[in-house]
């Protein structure tokens, strides 16, 4: 049995757990704990080690989805989780511009760990106060070549689209590298 993995990362409360939950064929193995900090109490619990989802491709191949913890104090997990990944998704909450800088920093950190292809998912597009994708691209200082995709993490079709775009990027990079 061959296994491959993709990592879903992003700031606290960006929607990483929800993203994996929407597509995983198993109940997501989640290491959530109640939030202890008032500042971050925008939700009841948060991921402290990782989320773990699975998609069985066929008898010989399984795709694992790993969600990283969003809180900075668990960032020692990031490098461990990024090892050997095919590519990664950076989730960004479109309604919280205060997290954009952190999202950019996480993106750069993961690029440093492994120069694999990645896409950025602008999550919570169904919210009224979501920023325009074009505005987010400028705010996140993303190169025009980087895919910034609209996403609602609890919508399976949206999640499929994000993963497919990441896979297309991986194919494209293989073609351009000629390896």
């Amino acid at each position, binding site marked *: 049995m*061959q*296994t*491959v*993995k993709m990592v879903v990362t992003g700031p606290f409360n960006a929607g990483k757990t929800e993203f994996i939950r929407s*597509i995983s064929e198993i109940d997501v*193995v989640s*290491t959530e*704990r109640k939030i*202890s*900090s008032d500042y971050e109490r925008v939700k009841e619990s948060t991921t*402290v*080690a*990782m989320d*773990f989802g699975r*998609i*069985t*491709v*066929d008898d010989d*191949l399984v*795709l*694992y989805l*790993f969600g990283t913890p969003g809180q900075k*104090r*668990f960032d*020692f*997990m990031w490098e*461990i*989780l990024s*090892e*050997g990944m*095919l590519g990664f998704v950076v989730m960004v909450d479109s309604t*919280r*511009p*205060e997290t*954009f800088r952190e999202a950019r920093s996480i993106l750069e950190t993961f690029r440093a760990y492994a120069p694999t292809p990645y896409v950025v998912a602008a999550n919570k597009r169904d919210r*009224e*106060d*979501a*920023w*325009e994708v*074009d*505005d987010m691209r*400028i*705010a996140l200082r993303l190169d025009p070549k980087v895919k910034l995709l609209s996403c609602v993490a609890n919508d*399976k079709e949206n999640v*499929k689209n994000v*993963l*497919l775009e990441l*896979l*297309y990027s*991986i*194919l494209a990079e*293989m073609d351009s590298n000629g*390896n």
Partner: protein
Amino acid sequence: MALKGNLRDFSITQLLNLVNLAHKSGTLIVERTNEKMWVCFRDGKLAYAQAAGEDASLATVLYKAKKLSAAQHRAIKERAGPMSDKELGLLLINASYMSQDDIIASLQSFFLQTMNRLLTWAEGLFRFESDLLPPDDKITVRINLENIIIEGARRMKELEQLQDEIPSLDIALKFADRPGANIRNVNLSVDEWQVVRYISPKNSLRQIARATNKNDLEIRRIVYALLQAGLVEFVRPTGALPPRYPAVKQSRATSAASAPPQAQSPLPASPQAQSRVLAPLQAQGRQPAPPMDKTEKKSLINRLINRIRSL
């Protein structure tokens, strides 16, 4: 879709950069306690700016720019009645009082002054209304944002440094008890003299800034220079509440003390603990995959694509 937030999280220079790069048209509205500003853009260029409660009529702008005397300003205000800025501008040009360039330069300078005040705001709720354009009766300009952004970044940096030196504006000043030091013998600028006039334990820096029409950066800059020269000292304002600074310091200390220590985190960071967390990973997915050739890897990716499509 909304373009809104707080300057604390997304600074004014970042916003201007966004407007500039996206060639946006519309009005940026920024509010903080008792203050509000409107800044209008057209195709990513500054077109108009106004602060709430401020007389931004053309007559007043020209008076402030010393293009009109006090008597002329008063006469225009009395006689022009409901005349719009555009009508007044045409009247002044046709009567050869001034050129169009004079009017545009005065307005540009006025809008830039308003922008410079906004550039010192570190906090405030903002929203961008793309369907809100400058009032029809107002004269608009076209000012590139690049220089404003650079100036803004410089001012923000300077303000940060000055905030370290003068953390609160709710504190007062008194003249230093230095026998022999005479402020009359010191060369002060007009702005510094304006501030010096109000120095008293009864007046907080915030009150002095308001009385002398200075923004946060300007008042801090002047007070810092006076402090450096040893001419003034901080003092708690007479009869005022304790300044905000110690309270902030205290709350920071309190929050640090009440923050859960690292040892309480649900995930111990010891190597043993990490290895416990890693165990399931290694069992399930962290085994390094054997190297694949290009065809094999492409086939794998295509299998993944087909599977995800079919979900």
